């Protein structure tokens, strides 16, 4: 009889503690994917993460490598400072839609336009989770939130902001892909995209970003399964998946 072999375990870069995330939230999966890629690329000892303000504010408690906080929206300015001083390190930010595409839009666009050789993991769940479900720049039209109780209306609130497509216009942006976490197949694609983004930085190509469509069952007011189906059937129609640049 063959001895049992361990073929699946917690990544070295992920600490062995429970997260604070709600049931069905995508952050746990996204954290794990980043940790798996950091392990696979063998960069744990030279990676430096910049955590956001938002639900993932304590991402540094979950990852087991060097991390900094950043003020709300400022992660890419902080990452710029770190990477310019230590170009040999692998620097990435992990940011939500409010952080990256509302309060931090300026920092995002200009870091991308300078071609900062950093990687961005952009979690798009179309809502502000941490503060109680307010409208995000990426909230879909008609979507009800704490601050759009009658649903988002284009004439009042504007259309969902497609920051990935906007950034793709900039010459110094080298890699952008939009992925989703709504099924195991999509999670595997997301993992490949994250790996390509980090590899792009390792190869010194310039700015790289992966936009991850991620469920927020709590503030979408849906059971987890329905939230995943909503990404597949509704959200990914507004935010089409695939390589953008």
């Amino acid at each position, binding site marked *: 009889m063959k001895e049992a072999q361990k073929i699946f375990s917690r990544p070295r870069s992920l600490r062995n503690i429970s997260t604070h995330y709600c049931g069905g939230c995508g952050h746990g999966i996204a954290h794990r994917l980043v940790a798996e890629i950091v392990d696979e690329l063998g960069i744990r*000892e030279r990676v430096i993460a910049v955590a956001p303000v938002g639900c993932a504010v304590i991402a540094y408690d979950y990852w087991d490598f*060097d991390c900094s*906080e950043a003020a709300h929206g400022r992660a890419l300015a902080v990452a710029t400072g770190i990477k*310019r001083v*230590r170009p*040999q*390190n692998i620097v990435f930010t992990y940011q939500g839609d409010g952080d990256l595409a509302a309060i931090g839009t300026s920092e995002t666009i*200009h870091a991308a336009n300078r071609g900062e050789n950093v990687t961005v993991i952009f979690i798009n769940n179309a809502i502000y989770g941490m503060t109680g479900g307010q409208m995000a720049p990426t909230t879909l039209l008609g979507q009800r939130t704490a601050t759009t109780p009658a649903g988002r209306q284009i004439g009042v609130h504007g259309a969902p902001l497609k920051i990935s497509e906007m950034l793709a216009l900039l010459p110094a942006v080298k890699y952008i892909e939009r992925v989703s976490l709504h099924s195991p197949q999509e999670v595997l694609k997301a993992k490949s995209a994250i790996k390509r983004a980090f590899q792009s930085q390792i190869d010194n190509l310039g700015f790289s970003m992966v936009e991850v469509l991620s469920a927020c069952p709590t503030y979408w007011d849906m059971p987890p399964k329905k939230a995943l189906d909503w990404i597949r059937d509704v959200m990914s129609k507004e935010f089409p998946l695939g390589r953008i640049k």
Partner: protein
Amino acid sequence: MKSKSRQKEIKKILMTGNEAIAQGAIDAGCRFYAGYPITPQNELTAYMARCMPDSGGVFVQSESEVAAINMVFGASCAGARSMTSSSSPGISLKQEGISYIAGAELPAVVVNIMRGGPGLGNIWPSQSDYFQATRGGGHGDYHSIVLAPSSVQEAYDLMFLAFDLADNYRNPVMVLGDGILGQMMEPLQVTSHKSQVTGQKAVVCLPIGKATSQKTWALTGCEGRNPNIIKSFRMKEGDLEKLNLALQKKYKAIRQKEARFESLFLEDAKIIIVAYGTMARIAKGAVGMLRAKGKKAGLLRPITLWPFPEKVFKDLQARNSKLKTLLVTEMSYGQMLEDVKLALDGKLKVEFLGRAGGGVPTEEDIIRKAGKIL
């Protein structure tokens, strides 16, 4: 590196205060600068753009003052001596970042070449940001250490102290000048780096990309050690209070050790003019003119605005029983005045002479006011 013979040749160079601050920062080992254009400090940013790359450092023109201070946060996380500069409205924008730097206990230097306010104000010199500089400025219970040079030479020299204090206490340090200091040209003698923090060895400046063994907390990648985390966020019950108590302990030590001032004729003065920065230059002139007329005037010039040199004020009466009045003069409507009154605790009479919004009290104004008091 300049050769020895070349160093001998260069005895004094003519520079603006803005340029002297930039050169002082580079000579003090600053290797990361981010800034956004704003008058009257633009020569500083341009000097950094010109000279930082040759010194092995990084210059970034940021998209905003907000981005600049957060770039400094990042560069400081990564272990570099880091700095940004701006003028009053831009410094208001940086307050968020300064609060985070204080909360995360990162060293950083912020230069404010003050202009008239409030609002967009104007580009004339002013000292109206004293409250903002010395009371924290951003949210939370914190202090920046605040240095106030009054000459181009001192602006250069204090940059060494600024970086040493920032590293030693892991605290933001603000260098507070004004539009006159930034724009005026004076002869400057450049010096080599000696640590000006008591009992501390000078921090060796390392080129970009090298690890600094003196900053074990820095983010350099966790090779051979446990991961480092830099944060100000403390959600666990009691954690934020603990951080605040640690900060207060640090501030107490800074208050005890780092207060600095310059004084003239404290022992026999009947009136002491109190001023800092550019106003102290004018006050010094006025004291000289009053003395020439046989009037016993003295000067007290705080060099550190926070910590405020309280002790010298508290000891004045014991040192000099003839002293009756202090005349505080500022390019503001009485901001440092409050610290002088707090230090004296009602024991001596305090008068005030101030103008702002571009107005600068003159030597004659001071002499006239002092004459009325004497």
